[in-house]
């Protein structure tokens, strides 16, 4: 790896700014509302980093996606794709905190933690070594525990943080155990070398590798919100400050998928393909339980949290079908970037309502179209995009995913059933999305005074609406970017003698 690689530049710039903000805060003489200063610094730093990544992609400095890197980090397209996705999320979160953190304590620590957590998320996507993966995983997780507990006087925020911490720490302990087993069997922590030597593993060690894979699914599954490991998720997303809810739902969850694609999907090739069936079962349960859970909720962030469980199920379709279809992982990546924007837009719109009306309850959303017209429109568009209504971007990524599931029919019998489950679940999900919109547009609120909408949040929402509608009408560039970033699985044949024939 060259010295000036993208992950290094990202780490240095974001890390320097993230550490500089608390230092500036300590050195500043006059106390006062420094929120805007730190917000501005963070936004500029993130824009700079996005610019650097795009520049390096355009000038061919980032190599095409590689499955197995020799060193700790690989400066490839897969990592750059996730880096751009996650930085879009963190820029939306930081920019909307301009309003959300107004008159709140410790803005310096807040922005610094968001930047440090973003470094962790990005390094996960670039890492090709399990040691780097775990360190990046923890760099992502530990700041978010503190951020979830950020409203110190709010018992709800604290409760959410305790639940989030207990499950998050358990998931990282499980990951260490899984990495230990892989290391014990193969003698290396490099993902590529470990997977290649798993092919030739002794017969009596195969159960150990399978146990390691199960532990990996559990460890990553806690962050991704897959169904047997999802119980902490609605509590954490609802209780945490709403902008942090956006960071958790759109950021850390996507980083979990990056890790899963780097490790689990490649490992399923080597071990038995039955594991793809297990992932498919998890996918169906995840989307169904997520949608059913969302139907009975009374609080809007909680509905969004359950809906993010369901969306994780759709993304899992692509991961489960990766051994059978070329399009499936591309569809997953496409849905990942779309879901990141849609979900953070929805959470940020909820944050705007939380600032002005000080409530999360769905009853407060009655007549919101009259009180906060722009926020209501942005929230409706992001909910429609989440439900997959054409011509918004969520429709196209679901179309690619479900199409991939249908065309695998001749190769794997359960492929088309995943598409059926996905379509039925999208219809089900429209139930609660439409319910929120009905409250906003059809019902009258007792108080119809117009409320001033926070301006920075409006800017973020306008950006995301442009993203959702624009890339809904013209989806080709993002789809191409996603397809180019997929690991080329058919080239694995050269490396792996026992690669299953298509």
């Amino acid at each position, binding site marked *: 790896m060259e010295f000036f690689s993208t992950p290094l530049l990202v780490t240095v710039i974001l890390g320097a700014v993230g550490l500089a903000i608390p230092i500036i805060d300590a050195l500043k003489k006059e106390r006062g509302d420094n929120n805007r200063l730190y917000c501005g610094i963070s936004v500029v730093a993130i824009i700079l980093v996005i610019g650097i990544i795009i520049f390096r992609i355009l000038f061919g400095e980032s190599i095409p996606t590689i499955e197995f890197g020799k060193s700790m980090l690989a400066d490839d397209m897969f990592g750059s794709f996730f880096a751009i996705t996650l930085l879009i999320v963190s820029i939306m979160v930081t920019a909307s905190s301009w309003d959300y953190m107004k008159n709140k304590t410790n803005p310096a620590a807040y922005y610094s933690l968001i930047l440090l957590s973003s470094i962790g998320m990005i390094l996960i996507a670039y890492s090709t070594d399990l040691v780097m993966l775990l360190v990046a995983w923890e760099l992502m997780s530990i700041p978010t525990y503190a951020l979830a507990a950020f409203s110190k006087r709010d018992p709800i925020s*604290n*409760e959410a943080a*305790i*639940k989030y911490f207990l499950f998050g720490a358990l998931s990282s*302990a499980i990951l260490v155990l899984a990495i230990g087993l892989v*290391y014990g069997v193969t003698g290396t922590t490099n993902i590529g070398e470990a997977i290649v030597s798993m092919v030739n593993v002794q017969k009596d060690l195969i159960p150990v590798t399978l146990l390691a894979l199960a532990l990996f699914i559990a460890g990553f599954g806690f962050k991704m919100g897959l169904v047997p490991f999802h119980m902490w998720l609605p509590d954490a997303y609802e209780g945490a400050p709403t902008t942090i809810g956006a960071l958790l739902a759109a950021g850390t969850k996507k980083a979990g998928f990056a890790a899963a694609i780097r490790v689990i999907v490649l490992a399923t090739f080597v071990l038995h393909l039955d594991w793809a069936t297990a992932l498919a079962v998890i996918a169906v349960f995840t989307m169904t339980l997520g949608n059913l859970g969302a139907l009975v909720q009374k609080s809007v962030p909680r509905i969004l949290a359950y809906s993010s469980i369901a969306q994780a199920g759709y993304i899992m379709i692509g991961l489960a079908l990766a051994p059978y279809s070329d399009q499936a992982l591309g569809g997953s990546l496409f849905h990942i970037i779309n879901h990141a924007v849609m979900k953070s837009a929805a959470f940020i719109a909820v944050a705007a309502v939380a600032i002005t009306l000080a409530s999360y309850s769905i009853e407060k959303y009655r007549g919101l179209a009259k009180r906060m017209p722009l926020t209501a429109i942005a929230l409706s568009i992001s909910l429609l995009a989440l439900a997959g209504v054409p011509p918004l971007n969520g429709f196209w990524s679901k179309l690619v995913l479900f199409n991939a599931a249908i065309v695998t029919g001749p190769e794997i019998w359960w492929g088309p059933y995943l598409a059926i489950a996905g379509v039925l679940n999208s219809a089900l999900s429209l139930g609660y999305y439409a319910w929120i919109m009905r409250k906003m547009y059809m019902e009258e609120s007792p108080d119809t005074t117009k409320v001033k909408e926070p301006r920075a949040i409006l800017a973020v929402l306008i950006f995301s609406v442009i993203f959702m509608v624009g890339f809904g009408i013209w989806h080709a560039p993002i789809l191409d970017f996603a397809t180019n970033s997929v690991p080329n699985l058919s080239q694995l044949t050269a490396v792996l003698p026992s690669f299953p024939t298509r």
Partner: protein
Amino acid sequence: MNQLIDFVLVTVVLFSIGIYGLVVKRNAIRMIFSIEIIANAANLNLIAFSRHVHNVEGQVFALFSIAIAAAEVAVALGIIIIAYRLYKEIDVHEFRSLKG
């Protein structure tokens, strides 16, 4: 007590103790201890395997993992101190305003 299997057995026992503690205990600090026991079981596993396969990567990784676990516990204790200020209690049964 020098075979790999002995260390792995100890690991399994520690892991089971950790899971038992996490499921049964209701005191937040005890639950953190249980998670720490699981993490240490994983570290022991790594070191035993490192000795078995004769390279140091596993031990280096165990050092990383110990440092990270320390940072994690520091954040957790901070959160629990705030919880104690708010609730005058660190029994997780009391933390149930979020549900559904």
